[in-house]
């Protein structure tokens, strides 16, 4: 009997100050406001979450209870985890003049946006993939596409990004953004795609 009291008191004390002994899952809208789906399977029950701020809580008997969380409740429990989210990956496309590795006038401006994004991040990893239009044979386009990627890499390296964090590749004329007939000079295909993570 005494032992029972001791256990009861212990559980009251623990329940009062320790973390709650149930799981909590909250579905959030993404940056565009869209909501995905998470299926929460407990020992007995199951809940499908597919609306913004829908919650699932496990119960002591192994069930799963559906509900809704307020934004302030989300903040109370998850503020540290949310504040530690890594920045989202961002992509840039820069365009080039025909047959060389010179940026177009417009892309010269857009390079600044790339700089700002790279400077904002700690230890970014960057992938730079060069492409060409469909003028000329494979070998020279392979070389030109890599040359364009390397041009971007050297600019980023000049900003102090370590070279081993920048992966470059040239895809030549294999992946035109706008497929054209052979030999067509298409500005939208003369590009470098940059992914910053």
């Amino acid at each position: 009997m005494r032992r029972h009291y001791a256990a009861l008191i212990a559980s009251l004390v623990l329940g009062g100050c320790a973390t709650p002994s149930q799981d909590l899952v909250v579905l959030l809208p993404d940056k565009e406001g869209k909501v995905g789906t998470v299926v929460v399977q407990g020992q007995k029950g199951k809940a499908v979450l597919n609306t913004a701020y829908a919650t699932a809580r496990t119960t002591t008997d192994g069930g799963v209870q559906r509900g809704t969380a307020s934004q302030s409740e989300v903040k109370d429990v998850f503020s540290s985890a949310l504040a530690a989210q890594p920045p989202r990956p961002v992509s840039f496309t820069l365009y080039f003049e025909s047959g060389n590795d010179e940026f177009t006038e417009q892309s010269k401006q857009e390079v600044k946006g790339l700089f700002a994004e790279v400077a904002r991040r700690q230890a970014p990893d960057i992938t730079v993939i060069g492409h060409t239009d469909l003028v000329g044979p494979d070998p020279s386009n392979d070389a030109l596409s890599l040359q364009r990627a390397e041009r971007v890499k050297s600019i980023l390296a000049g900003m102090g990004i370590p070279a081993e964090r920048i992966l470059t590749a040239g895809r030549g004329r294999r992946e035109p953004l706008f497929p054209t007939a052979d030999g067509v000079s298409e500005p939208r295909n003369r590009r470098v795609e940059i992914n910053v993570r």
Partner: protein
Amino acid sequence: MQSTRLIVLRRFLLMCAFTIAPIASWANDIAQFRVARGSVYLERSGQRLPARVGTHLQATDTVVTGADGSAGIAFVDNSLLSVGPNSVLAIERYAFNSTTHEGAFESSLRKGTLSVVSGKIAKQSPDAMKVKTPSSILGVRGTEFLVRSGD
């Protein structure tokens, strides 16, 4: 003549050393710490290693944060996971094919809080990403959600 050849050879070897090393290390790496605040550790094959921004993770690593700790991790499929204080997150399985975007991602939040933004693995195959807690299993079809593990 010989000296130029030597210089060329040396340059070539240097180039190999600098280009092959990062590629080889990338092959095993599935993720990287992008944020590490307070005390953050990695448990890898029985060892406890400090985690900093830029530290790479391997499949089967466990991330541990202290009372003042929080950490954000970016995976190669663009899944983003972050944990709050007093958390233990075990990566149990991670595989990703960057060409087909097929893969498998299973992690276990043993305690604490977790925020998830799912990436290409969950987008490509709806049942490929799972998050477990000691009392439930989450099937992830996308995209953003939070988990607190009861203990």
